């Protein structure tokens, strides 16, 4: 069952693998933005997570510890952003850019002795019975634990924001920080937590690239995926379910263009390589053109909260 040298089962299975890092990072950023904070440092946190996870996995031999280290690394870097924006009241856009510049440099510094090493591999979990379903089994039920974790995270984030008290507080802080403050909620503490969650998720996403997807360490390994994750949050109108759709859409484009390259399609390689970025622009335009006036963005997004 091949179409022009591309096997649809492998294509769809690798789609899930390619989408996972985008999904993890975009979910984290969505929670951060829901609390009213725009952190443009996703790319920096991802690549820091990628290198921390890679080093920890190689040194300990355990990919699980690698992912733990990646989450800690991403979160640690995001705390710098928290410090800048919540304590030092810095404008969020340049602070996020600074985080990306810093993270990229830091990752390349930490990773310089790890180029060309193969990390320990993460075993695939074969879900009993379900994995034997023809077509669907190999596509959906033969992946590693992180793929399932990312899907679980979509549900968890959705339920957290919609049904829990803490989720309501987080949304309140993002919609009107003055009112939330007046009600006695700790605006800065909530935002620190949201920033930290975003950092940890970006770190996990980065480690998924360096430990599973590639799996290797090279400079600039995240190659713009953090920025695509930011765009997907806008595309998804700050809804967890749509983040999943967006991430899988872009994972799909990435995998398809890689497969077309490998299959030797008569399209220039460069055009295929730029297609995810072009698609992102098109999607952003469609989303912003469709909305007249009202957007679903948290009302306090990017605003500084200060009491004196």
């Amino acid at each position, binding site marked *: 069952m091949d179409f022009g040298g591309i096997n649809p089962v492998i294509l769809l299975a690798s789609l899930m693998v390619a989408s996972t890092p985008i999904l993890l990072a975009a979910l984290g950023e969505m929670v951060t933005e829901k609390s009213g904070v725009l952190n443009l440092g996703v790319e920096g946190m991802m690549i820091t997570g990628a290198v921390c996870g890679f080093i920890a996995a190689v040194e300990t031999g355990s990919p699980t510890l690698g992912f733990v280290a990646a989450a800690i690394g991403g979160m640690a870097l995001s705390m710098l952003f928290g410090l800048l924006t919540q304590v030092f*009241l810095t404008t969020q856009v*340049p602070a996020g850019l600074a985080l990306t510049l810093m993270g990229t*440099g*830091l990752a*390349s510094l930490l990773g310089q002795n790890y180029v060309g090493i193969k990390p320990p591999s993460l075993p695939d979990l074969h879900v009993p019975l379900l994995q034997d379903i023809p077509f669907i089994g190999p596509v959906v039920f033969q992946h590693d634990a992180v793929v399932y974790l990312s899907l679980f995270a979509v549900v968890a984030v959705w339920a957290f924001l919609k049904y829990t008290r803490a989720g309501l507080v987080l949304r309140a802080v993002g919609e009107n920080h003055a009112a939330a403050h007046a009600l006695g909620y700790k605006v800065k503490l909530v935002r620190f937590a949201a920033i930290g969650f975003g950092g940890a998720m970006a770190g996990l996403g980065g480690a998924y690239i360096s430990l599973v997807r590639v799996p290797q360490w090279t400079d600039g390994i995240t190659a*713009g995926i953090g920025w695509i994750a930011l765009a997907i949050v806008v595309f998804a109108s700050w809804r967890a379910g749509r983040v999943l759709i967006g991430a899988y859409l872009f994972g799909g484009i990435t995998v398809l263009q890689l497969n077309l390259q490998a299959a030797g399609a008569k399209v220039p390689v460069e055009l295929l390589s730029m297609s995810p*970025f072009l698609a*992102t622009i098109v999607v952003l335009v469609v989303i912003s053109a469709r909305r007249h006036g009202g957007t679903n963005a948290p009302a306090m997004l990017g605003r500084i909260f200060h009491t004196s």
Partner: protein
Amino acid sequence: MITFVKRPQPSKFWTIATPVLAVILTMILGGLLFAAMGKDPVVAIRTIFWDPLFNDQFAAYSRPQLLVKAAPLILIAIGLSLGFKAGIWNIGAEGQYIIGALTGASVGLALYPLDAWWIFPLMVIAGALGGFLWAMIPAILKTRFNTNEILVSLMLVYVAEQILASAALGFLRNPEGNGFPGSRNLSQIPAMSNPELISGTGAHWGVVAAFAAVVAAYVLINKHMLGFQIRLTGESPRAARFAGVKDRLLVVFCLGTAGALAGLAGLFEVTGPAGQISIDFGAGYGFTAIIVAFLGRLHPVGILLAGLLLALTFIGGELAQFMLGLPSAAIQVFQGMLLMILLAMDILVNYRVMIVNKEAA
């Protein structure tokens, strides 16, 4: 307990003092970073900031490099600062720089081997136009569809890098290059080269353009209505709309100017110091220029000084890599740290630090 009280106006003293303090603090923290990597911090800092300018052995080579590296940073940062002042975030200058170099070089190479005086000026115009048009993509999407210019301009950097790769490997490849990637060496074709104008200074046409941009930006910001509108929009978008500022026009102007200047920087680089279109032509000037713009406080004169300082960290960083084996990524961390510390210190500019007795408050 320490609290921050918003100042009615930004403090003039701290506006100037904080960049200096930030540089000093970054040197101290950077020194600690270098020490943690097993290098002598004092030697490392001296190698980066002192030796390129004053060491007998290296200064002869390094001093001219200062202007060579500072020119593109200043050109790009001047353009970015206009938008940043008005709250228009063009972070895709790297892409505009690459496209400017490509369009300029393409025009020149299309005329090869013609030799005429007007070829280089034509290339300069083509380079500026290329950068301008590339920046018009986020500008028009922003004004027509209200699309986020931060994400679009950044995405276009990755697109530009792919076009660059296809140019270096394909349509601009040197037909006499034995199949190696990369275009003809423009700096060796008299009609297309951007030579050192005064020998031993490093000053090429890009340096001239950078100084001209500094002066023009100063006049624009301080003496021209458009400059006032840019500042007003940044400080209070609502008030600006009531005052009749055409915000769409401002988006087009700020992004367009930044794109044209970045395109110029790219053209001067490809015809001079870089010499040819190659896959690794984009050297990150477009991103470092963001640091330059902020360190220079979005002020033309400040940007001039900041551009020279960041250029020094590049040259000193190379020297430290050569002399002490300091990895080039360490300089990148150092630059990122500088921006972070500077941003953190902004609080002194905009807020008054007060120590309040909690019971009394």
